[in-house]
């Protein structure tokens, strides 16, 4: 607690244009924690249903394309790496490089979504969706696929949001609003992207490696 109190002493009184680097990051972290709880609710559901239907979940997992899942993980990890490095680049004053790295991350996001779309449409074509007659009378697998669509779907929405935020960061960098001195927007955008990455790190074993 003591360093918190000390830091408060430093907290300068608000000026007309209030910029608080620490504060901005704190706000972003709080938001990410609330995102964790959002997904936390889903993880609770997953755990309980899997405890109830261990075999059906394993059967459900065998319908997943693990290779695509792993490939997509590597894509996301690389994107995270790029956006993390872009902060270093910007801090060192290499704006072009930073913009290139953010652009790379955006591309990995788009690639991820394309793979996702291929996967989903494949499953739906084969009849693996919750109320399809293929799964009729198999409650465990219905649950597995319901959770699969909901969790990867919500994650996909977050990827799209992340792409939007990173695009905004890119534009702000191009316009000179996000700079070597004021990079917190980029840093927060990156934080968001990393969260999206972390959630996927958990989704991979829960669905793709569940067999």
């Amino acid at each position, binding site marked *: 607690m003591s360093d918190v109190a000390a830091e408060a002493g430093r907290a300068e009184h608000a000026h007309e244009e209030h910029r608080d680097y620490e504060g901005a990051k704190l706000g972003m972290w709080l938001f990410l924690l609330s995102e964790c709880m959002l997904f936390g609710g889903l993880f609770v559901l997953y755990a309980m249903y899997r405890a109830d239907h261990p075999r059906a979940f394993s059967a459900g997992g065998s319908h997943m394309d693990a290779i695509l899942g792993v490939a997509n993980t590597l894509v996301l990890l690389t994107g995270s790496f790029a956006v993390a490095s872009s902060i270093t680049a910007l801090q060192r004053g290499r704006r072009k490089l930073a913009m290139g790295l953010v652009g790379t991350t955006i591309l990995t996001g788009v690639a991820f979504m394309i793979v996702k779309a291929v996967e989903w449409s494949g499953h739906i074509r084969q009849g693996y969706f919750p109320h399809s007659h293929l799964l009729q009378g198999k409650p465990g697998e219905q649950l597995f696929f319901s959770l699969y669509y909901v969790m990867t779907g*919500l994650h996909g929405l977050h990827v799209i949001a992340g792409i939007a935020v990173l695009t905004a960061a890119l534009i702000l960098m191009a316009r000179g609003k996000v700079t070597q001195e004021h990079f917190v927007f980029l840093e927060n955008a990156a934080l968001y992207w990393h969260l999206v990455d972390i959630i996927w790190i958990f989704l991979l074993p829960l669905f793709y490696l569940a067999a």
Partner: protein
Amino acid sequence: MTTSEAPPRAGAASYLEDHGRFSGIFGWIFSTDHKRIGILYLVSTLFFFFVGMSLGFLMRLQMLSPHGELFKNADYYNALFTLHGVIMIFLFIIPAVPGSLGNFFMPIMIGAKDVAFPRLNLLSWWLYVTGAVIALASLFGSGLPDTGWTFYAPYSLRTHADIPMAVFGVFVLGFSSILTGINFITTMHRMRAPGMGWFKMPLFPWALYATSWVQVLATPVLGITMLLIFVERIFHVGIFNPAMGGDPLLYQHLFWMYSHPAVYIMILPAMGLISEMIPTFAHRTIFGYGAIVWSSMGIALLGSLVWAHHMFTSGLSDAAATVFSLLTFLVAVPSAIKVFNWTATLYKGSIALEPPMLYALSFIFLFSVGGLTGLILGALALNVMLHDTYFVVAHFHYVIFGGAAFAFFGALHYWLPKMFGRMYNRSAAYIGWALLFTGFNLLYFTMFVLGVMGMPRRYAFYLPRFQTPQVIATVGSWIMIAGILVVFTNLIVSVFKGEKAGDNPWGGVTLEWQIPSPPPTENFLEPPTIPEKAYDFEGAFAS
């Protein structure tokens, strides 16, 4: 006692006067000034309180006779209690105190100019309005709402009512609440005036700090639960639907993982308000400052571990029921600590029975009744008998109405002179309080009795043997509503026509009393003097 000698200096335009880009109504609804946003929340939450109150009034009318005084069709009663519940919970009591008084006073009390993210703050209010509109628009969908405010699956997956719209509205409201929480936590970490250490912070900001954590960490669980109902209805996935393997009890788990902590979102800020009013009107330093702070944090934490006490009769496992019952008893401890601290503060105080103090004292009484009956409900055996009876309805009205809303009304009497620079008519305030308090107890205490007699909640009709107490309760509701009308007529009239109140009519020692009433846009014209410790009445009187 009053120290209003300093005349307003030049340039000290109050926040009520227009300045900035917009004027008139736009100057308000697009303002990022935390005080104006506070007033926006005040007006909108009170508006919904009155809507909810009217629905409650109708429900009580229906209960005048066993076969229904108003309508013979139970669907209308179902719609009434659903709407009443949704409005009172999501549109009134959850946003009311943090949104209005929290926004207005927390930054001032910690010596800040505004919250950390003013624009996000405005966005919160807009999301609140949007969520309210969406939730209410569900009324005009496919059928009357009939799920209760709890939206329990599997019924909510089947009913004709426009559930997807309603739960989406609740989701948006939750988002608004989360943003407020994030804003407040950041504000208290980053914006305290130099010298305002954590343990010099007044207790209302502290209470909001604890509340904000609950808002940030519990509300998303509600968000996901509502989203799941939404996708289940729209895309026919099966998460809670037993026909597709789902477990409806898991819906209840997730729902109460938020909604029990939500009770603390309602009551913690209210407790903070009580901790402000009691020292001021007892003219005495609060007893056990540290204990109150830590019990707030303790309540916030323990409060997230008791949710399944709402599910004792649902078929929960025995082991879980036992553990949750035990935890429920534990959470009473920090609440009791606070009650002891407030009463200890009164001891040897020089008590001024001003209107706000009457509310604070009634809070202690009503909240204790609500809390103690909560223990009765938390006991497994008794719960089987009392579950879903009027006993429960009485219990939670004692806690959230007698507790949270009474504190809110009291604080309006406490801070109205600060917010608008005007004083209300005290006799009218006393009369209003007396009616409200009498009617309240007549209405809800009778409901305890009805509950023990076996009257189930959410029923539109009842057996003739319940009629006498039902009539008594309804008469109580009339007295109570008359009181509410007196209270608010008085307050609203005073905002426009009241006598000028000084800068510090009550002799308070927290920072908001150091600045002019109504506060200037900048809050502090010069850096505030931070007292040696919070609630230092000796120091204040010595100087």
